[in-house]
């Protein structure tokens, strides 16, 4: 996954802050933290050039645990804070961490706008399908009928599909991974980091206190073969212990089939760089929830003008055209007269 000629200058420990991690024991957030700390040395960057920005929630405590620069912001606004930071400092690596409530409820607006602008920030959405920090209300990704303290008779709200939202917002990089597979997380985060633009990664994250086992149907070891569909660029989409299942495009809908029934040639070949997002969208919506075959990996990775650099280019063009900054000239630009 990384350039073999590269010698890391840091160790995972260099990326850990001195703060005691305060998530509940057993929380999926721990394994995501470990994956990121382990990944960082291989990225060819330094803690001092890295910033983690977050909103509010359990997930959003993340920046405190990384020995980098960090902003623990306010609920939902992390993508906007990060956008300003990335614009002012295109030289930095900016990561945004948030929960499903943070990024899809109160901050949904900022998320979609950051994605459509394609500003170079890496957004990791820790989806536990619940409001963890406020002790267990249903979230915008909770399934209909979820019984929580605020929905004792079952929630009535239809959930968002985070990947479909991101694709609808014209995200140029969209991926999914889960907290039970460190290597898959590291590979996915590495790809997000390498992407020149906004990168959106949904991480299935277990909240063992308020929504335990929400993703077990697909992430538990014994369920993975049958229910996780690893997407590999340029390869036919197949899964199962012996590759006995596959995915086909049936009149614009993705459908799971027995490979033997359709033949290898009928399987959909994954093309993450396909500019039209329809196939990625269809794959994103393949599973109705984390209880049936669910694709993971990179759904979409396309090139699109990066926002912060485009801003910088405009500044350079303006200098060319209008000349260097000259206060006297500006103050006289509307005409002057002498008394």
């Amino acid at each position, binding site marked *: 996954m990384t350039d073999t000629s590269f010698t890391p200058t840091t160790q995972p420990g260099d990326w850990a802050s001195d703060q005691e991690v305060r998530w509940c024991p057993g929380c999926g957030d721990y394994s995501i933290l470990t994956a990121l700390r382990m990944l960082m040395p291989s990225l060819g960057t330094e803690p001092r050039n890295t910033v983690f920005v977050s909103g509010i929630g359990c997930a959003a405590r993340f920046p405190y645990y990384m020995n980098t620069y960090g902003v623990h912001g306010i609920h939902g606004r992390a993508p906007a804070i990060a956008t300003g930071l990335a614009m002012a400092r295109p030289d930095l690596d900016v990561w945004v961490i948030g929960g499903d409530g943070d990024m899809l409820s109160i901050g949904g607006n900022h998320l979609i706008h950051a994605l459509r602008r394609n500003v170079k920030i890496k957004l990791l959405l820790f989806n536990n399908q619940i409001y963890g920090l406020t002790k267990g209300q249903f979230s915008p990704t909770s399934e209909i009928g979820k019984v929580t303290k605020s929905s004792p008779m079952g929630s009535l709200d239809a959930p968002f599909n985070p990947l479909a939202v991101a694709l609808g917002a014209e995200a140029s990089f969209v991926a999914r991974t889960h907290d039970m597979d460190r290597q898959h997380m590291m590979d996915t985060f590495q790809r997000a980091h390498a992407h020149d633009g906004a990168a959106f990664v949904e991480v299935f994250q277990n909240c063992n206190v308020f929504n335990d086992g929400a993703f077990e149907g697909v992430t538990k070891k014994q369920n993975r073969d049958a229910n996780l569909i690893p997407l590999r660029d340029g390869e036919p989409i197949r899964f199962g212990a012996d590759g006995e299942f596959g995915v086909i495009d049936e009149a614009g809908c993705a459908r799971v089939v027995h490979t033997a029934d359709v033949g290898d040639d009928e399987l959909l070949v994954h093309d993450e760089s396909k500019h039209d997002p329809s196939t990625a969208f269809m794959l994103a919506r393949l599973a109705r929830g984390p209880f049936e075959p669910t694709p993971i990996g990179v759904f979409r990775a396309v090139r699109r003008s990066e926002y912060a650099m485009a801003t910088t280019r405009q500044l350079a063009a303006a200098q060319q055209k209008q000349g260097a900054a000259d206060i006297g000239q500006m103050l006289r630009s509307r005409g002057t*007269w002498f008394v």
Partner: protein
Amino acid sequence: MTDTASRELPLQEIDEVIIRFAGDSGDGMQLTGDQFTSISAALGNDLSTLPEFPAEIRAPQGTLAGVSAFQVRISDFDITTPGDAPTVLVAMNPAALKAQLHNLAQGGALIVNTDAFNERNLEKAGYATNPLDDGTLDDYRTYPVPMSQITRDAVAQHGVKPRDAERSKNFFALGLISWMYTRPVEPTLEFINTKFRGRTQVIDANTSAFKAGYNFGETAEIFEAHYEVKPAPLAPGEYTNVNGNTALAWGCIVAGQLARLPVFLGSYPITPASDILHEMSLKKNFGVRTFQAEDEIAAAASAVGAAFGGALAFTSTSGPGLALKGETLSLAVSLELPLVVLDIQRGGPSTGLPTKPEQADLMMAMYGRHSESPLPVVAPRSPADCFDVAIEACRIALKYRTPVIVLSDGYLANSSEPWLLPDVNSLPDIGVEFATGFNGTNEDGDGIFLPYLRDPETLARPWAIPGTPDLMHRVGGIEKEDGTGNISYEPENHQLMVNLRQAKVDGVDVPDVEVAGDVDADLAVLGWGSTWGAIDAAAGRLREAGFEVAHVHLRHLHPLPANLGDVLRRYRAVVCPEMNKGQLCDIVRAKYLIDVSHIGKIDGVPFTTGEVTDAVRKRLEELSTV
């Protein structure tokens, strides 16, 4: 122009004139007013302008809702307001007459485009009978001029389509007024050439219309005189004519240069603040990054992010937007990062009067955030003062690492005045140092970085920006331990941090307030922000009438100048005109237990000098009877 043919009309010297151009939004009244202002500025008059736009972009033609007006006052003496009542009203159609006539001074001159007074237009304006001949205008000196017809005739030679021909009639009006007030014609001819460069037919048409207007004054035997307003004794130097929003934008950009920091503006369009976003977006060659965010929350949040990254960050808005930014500003208070918020106040509540001024966001600026969330507040007093106040706000924000709110308003935003250009070299250096190394040691004696270790004098914390080796640290909205900045829920620590944040703002170095006018008067007028011009002019009038009046005007609203209480206590009475229900009065009463009486006005129109004069005079007369 045609000197030889001109009738010998008397040339009368007058000390000032207040002209209001009024027409349909499509009639080009702003352009006309702007150009008249420019010529007068070049002649050396003191001046002050007040544009008035309809809230709707394309209100139906000929209706009251579509009337656009521009008031300009020129004088041969120092003035601080655009004047109370126009002495000359140019009305391009019945709607303009109907909407504006009540403003015209008794006996004022009224120049009407009679061609527009047809049945359809009269009906649209709601006139049952034609005001030109039903006695409505008996109290004024009315000059009926068939502007549309003469304009059409004048431009016919250029082959302009009849429908387009009339569009030059604003230049006819400008020509006529230029003649009446003996303005030179060359600057306007030049202006037409530059403004419409490349469109020969338009240049020809506007030039002909302008000349036709000028000649009409000279030859039509309806005017009894023309007038001259001599230059005002302004301080010598180079001047430009600037409105408040432009001055604010320039101040922000210049502050970036003075601080040697890149400028970032996060903003969401809103009247009357959008022009700041527009102006700053034009100055990308200064390295200014402007970001049109998805909403005001994102605008403020992006500015916080940019400030964390080491930019001089701004966010501009009006009242509804400031309300949305509240939570983000309290984050900035907690993070203790420099950030300047420009609030161009408008009438409310809710959408209210988007194009009209009000000063009713003062309490929101002071207290409109959850919990104890103090931040400095400053307010400019005139269009040109916006420049200095922008720099002052940045100075405070940078020195104390705090968000600062600037309270301008819709009046200052669009009103303009001559501005003696500052000597750029004499502007203050407001630069601050970023943290570059450790500022503490741990138990083992190793160097560590304490992001909340304060400067003992200013109580500002270090500003360590990403990219700096060794100073990696996390900031957040959760209460921080004094010094380390680590999360802390300790009761004593929270009390300490609340006190420190307040002490830091209380300790901002605000200059003492100075009393203008009669220091030893019995009565002081207290003001803040854009009421300065009207109060200053009212004090002048009262002085002429034999009264003594002191004027105390605040630029710094939080913290207040240290001497304010002592100064105000010297007076038997303190009155405070504000475009709100008494917000500064309440603050001053609460803080100093001084009984300030409120002079209120919240009708979307700035105080006139007359209104302030009358209200203050009443109080003065009460004082003299006790």
